[in-house]
């Protein structure tokens, strides 16, 4: 038996693209916080400077997948079906970003997940994602 924390770290280390982003994750009970430390290569707008909109979307999507890996350890990597990303304010390039996923519904085949990301103030999220993920039962 692997613990949820081991399950999460295994997921984080397995995916090359997570290392490309420099993304990390911490687990407190069953609540996971994803962490994206600032990095020059994640910048999309050098004038502000701000994180690339695609990086923000990818960070939110990987947060959803990481939380699903904790909640559904027996399953294979879920497939993303669709995501809607809302950009609320710029993701400032010099700050660490955090995100938490809320598994709204995990059914037999489909999971509906909401994710919110913030930087210095939890009450001022800079982006949010709603998405559907296809779960596969074969392990």
């Amino acid at each position, binding site marked *: 038996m692997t613990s949820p924390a081991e399950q999460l770290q295994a997921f984080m280390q397995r995916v*090359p693209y997570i290392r490309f982003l420099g993304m990390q994750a911490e687990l407190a009970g069953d609540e996971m916080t994803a962490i994206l430390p600032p990095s020059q290569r*994640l*910048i999309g707008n050098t004038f502000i400077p701000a994180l*690339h*909109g695609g990086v923000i*979307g990818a960070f939110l999507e990987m947060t959803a997948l990481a939380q699903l890996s904790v909640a559904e350890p027996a399953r294979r990597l879920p497939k993303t079906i669709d995501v809607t990303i809302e950009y609320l304010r710029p993701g400032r390039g010099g700050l660490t970003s955090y995100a938490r996923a809320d598994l709204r519904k995990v059914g037999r085949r489909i999971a509906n997940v909401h994710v919110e990301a913030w930087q210095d103030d939890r009450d001022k999220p800079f982006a949010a994602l709603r998405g559907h993920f296809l779960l596969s039962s074969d392990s």
Partner: protein
Amino acid sequence: MSDVPEAFREIAERMVQVTPQAAALGMRFVSVSPARGSLDVPWREDLVGDPDTGVIAGGVVTTLLDHTCGLAMAAAAGTEPFSTATLDLRIDYMRAAAPRTGVVCEAHCYKITRSIGFVRAEAWDVDRSDLVATAQAAFILNRPNP
């Protein structure tokens, strides 16, 4: 294609070189025409999302779609300088890309107002008639004061 000034084509090519995240992904300029743009990302080991299959990560496709939508916006706005930010981006993933294969994207800014641009984009790996993902996005446009 001939409707796009050569100077703008150079700006479009620079857009992928000077944006740190686009450069980090190895993003390449493909083409630009009025209100349309095309970019691609070649496959690379460190961009893989599923090590069991070697398929490029969905996040790479997300960033490529977002960036190509930005290029289409620039191509619709013409040579007038402006900055842009994504308001919302909806992506449908039809299927995983083929293993060890890069992704191409084309975006079309089909409506632009003084403050908002509406863009659709398609991404594929090998065959344009067999899409990997589609996107629908809205961008806010910050034009300099008249």
